[in-house]
């Protein structure tokens, strides 16, 4: 369960999504039983029940759940398991929800209508340490490095820790350049680019163990 890169068994995945067809569709994307072992939950309490028996390699969770918010789940999992990769399932991949999830420790997002093959690829990439990032998320982060405050999201996105190279990579992604193009422009190895992304997420993550931060998130000081 805690294997990082090379692993023998299937990747354990928990899907938390209240819409049945969507949940089933994502599960279909991960139907290769030799590669994935999938558990499903439709509500927050179901998810907690499932997680009670152990934390998976990958958690795919929706944010709006009938009995609570996906953020709570992300926070719980991140507090108890550092190795679980977390993806937010999003319709639009909009910055507001995705960035908030990243602040709590998520590693990216998965579009609800992603191609079935893409779903499996994303999960596999994730296990290889490749966090998915979209152009608009990259754009959102680099804008914050330029001191633009978003009055809607209002997050105190701490971009101070990002290096110039990381910001360059984000710019490249925001403008639609492929990882290969970015690596060529920056004179770095193509294989290292996904690692940079994960690093960027880790730097943005707030310390959710500090209750104060979570309280602030809860009370909307840092709007989710």
């Amino acid at each position: 369960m805690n294997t990082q890169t090379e692993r023998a068994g299937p990747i354990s995945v928990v899907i938390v999504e209240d819409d049945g067809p969507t949940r089933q569709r994502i599960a279909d994307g991960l139907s290769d039983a030799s590669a994935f072992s999938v558990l499903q939950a439709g509500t927050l309490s179901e998810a907690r029940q499932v997680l009670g028996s152990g934390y998976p390699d990958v958690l795919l969770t929706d944010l709006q759940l009938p009995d609570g918010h996906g953020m709570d789940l992300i926070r719980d999992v991140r507090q108890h398991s550092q190795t679980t990769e977390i993806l937010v399932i999003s319709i639009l991949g909009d910055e507001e929800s995705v960035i908030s999830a990243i602040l709590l420790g998520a590693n990216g997002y998965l579009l609800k209508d992603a191609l079935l093959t893409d779903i499996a690829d994303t999960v596999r990439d994730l296990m290889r340490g490749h966090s998915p990032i979209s152009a608009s998320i990259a754009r959102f982060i680099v804008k914050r490095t330029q001191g633009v405050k978003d009055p809607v999201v209002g997050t105190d996105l701490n971009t101070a820790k990002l290096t110039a190279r990381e910001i360059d990579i984000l710019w490249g992604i925001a403008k639609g350049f492929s990882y290969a193009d970015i690596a060529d422009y920056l004179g770095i190895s193509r294989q290292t680019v996904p690692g940079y992304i994960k690093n960027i997420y880790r730097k943005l993550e707030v310390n959710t163990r500090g209750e104060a931060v979570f309280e602030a998130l809860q009370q909307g000081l840092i709007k989710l």
Partner: protein
Amino acid sequence: MARPRGRIGWLLLYLALQPVIIVLCILARQIGPPLPPAVYELSGVELQDATGQFRSVDLPDFRPVSEDATSSAIYRVSLERPTTQKDVAWSIFVPRFTTGVQFEVNGSMIHDTHRNVMSRRPDRNTSAIATIPESLLHEGRNELIIHLVTWGPVGGYLDSVYAGPDKVLRPVHDQRSIMFETLPLILVAGQATLGAILGLIWINRRNDRSCGLLALAMLIGFFQYFVSMPASPQTLGLVGAAVVTQAPLVLHFIVRFIDMPPPRWLHLTFVPGIIIAFAGLSGQHDLLHAIFLPLGPPTIALCAAVACVLLGNAALRGNRKALIMAPVFSVMLGCALNDILTVSRLIPGERIFIGWFGYSIVLIVIGVWLTWRFVQALNDADSFADRLVKQVSEAEVKLRASFSREEERARAAALASERTRLMRDLHDGLGGQLVSIVALAEQPRDTTNTIGDAARAALRDLRLVINAMEEIDGDLMLALGSWRERISGQLRAHDMQLVWSVQSSHGLPVYPGLRPRHVIQVIRLLDEAVTNATKHSGASIVTIMIETIPGPDGDARGQISVRDNGCGFAVDAVNGAGTVQGRGLLNMKKRAALCDVTLSVTSAPLGTTVSLLLPADFPEAAQGG
């Protein structure tokens, strides 16, 4: 016509009032200052003539103006203290004299007014009193010699001589001292204070010359008051010049005060004062004497006359300030006239000079008035400022209210226009696609895949609309980045390969005029081109080429091309024709034109290229349609 005549009549009456004021001043002066009971007045006064003989003389006695710096006359009179008053202290009292007196009783000098520096001026109305030492006073007749010392431009004068009990004579002397020594001192001190105030006002308000002139006259008057006499010709020259110069100063003040432009010749009135000062500096008493008398008094008289004419003239024209100034000036003139008449013995009574009094009081009155006016002006300025502050704050409140109203309106308008835009964007894309999904779903044949495609297109468009709302500061590359993600999934679903080719590291120029509506139009054009490629071309590779090329005007223009390696079609055949493809192309061109984008389509058997040549900048007014 009756009215002006009536007004002029009043003004003439007013002018006629001035001589009356002058006469009243002279008459008022005839109310004499206190005198001791006549019983103590000594009679049988004798004056020593040139041969040394004493001859009987009537008091008051007048001596001519001395030719030398000083001259003196000697009077003799006998006095006898009644035996009934043997133990009563006796004094000698001379109520009025010019310029100095010395008392000698039985050959011993007991008093010399020369020792009192403040009373050595011919223009002071001081009296003299001296208690006779008991040891000098014999029973029976005692001899009193009075030396009358004369200096200055005025002739000698000795009024009556009194000898009597000190307790009777001294109160009279003290009363006179209050009137003729203390009071003038108070006046001159007030004059100095006001002069200083007016001077300060003038220093801070240089254009207020009337204040400066009056201040100068006052301060000159103050300083010359303390010069004692007899003095050196230099000092006398300066004092004479100071006295004479005050007249033109007051004249200039009056001219300025009644808002008259001072004529140039008026400055000539300062010349006599300067000549007198120089005559004094020569150090020759005779010269000073010879120059002062024909220059000084006539200058003062001339200034007074000019002032009278100017004031009268201005008063006749209804000048308010002149109307107020004229009676004040008449008082001054009346007092001065009294002095002239007294010196020239044209009116009876004691030789009491009140010209200086009148002048001083008038200056103080005018000074107080000017200061009052200044303070009033300050008050006006204050209340004006207060009013202004109040008005400004009121205006500010109103402005703020209207500004917030305006802001609210602008916000509402912006919101409304944004809502309209969003509605139009959703209607064009999402709405159409959802309707299409509904239609497909209702068809009897299996349309699952088509519905899936339409739904995906709808989702893509929703993401486009949301994405386009983010501010991208004119960098279209940022919008293309998200678009790339969207179409890469779409192409993968059709087993097509996406080649993304950016020709320079910058990609496209930055467009300051780029707005969300432009982004949506451009992306929709590109979407349509890509969708056409997936639907109709049968291509395996779609290449997106982003480049900056030289435009028709030689400027850098962005160009985005969508190229497929499909079967192609005859552009000419579909252009403008009634085919579906033709309509599609026409729509794309219309859409492109809205953003000033030049759309060109080339198709060959080896593939189709749709190129969007972007404008130099996006049009502000363009509305997405």
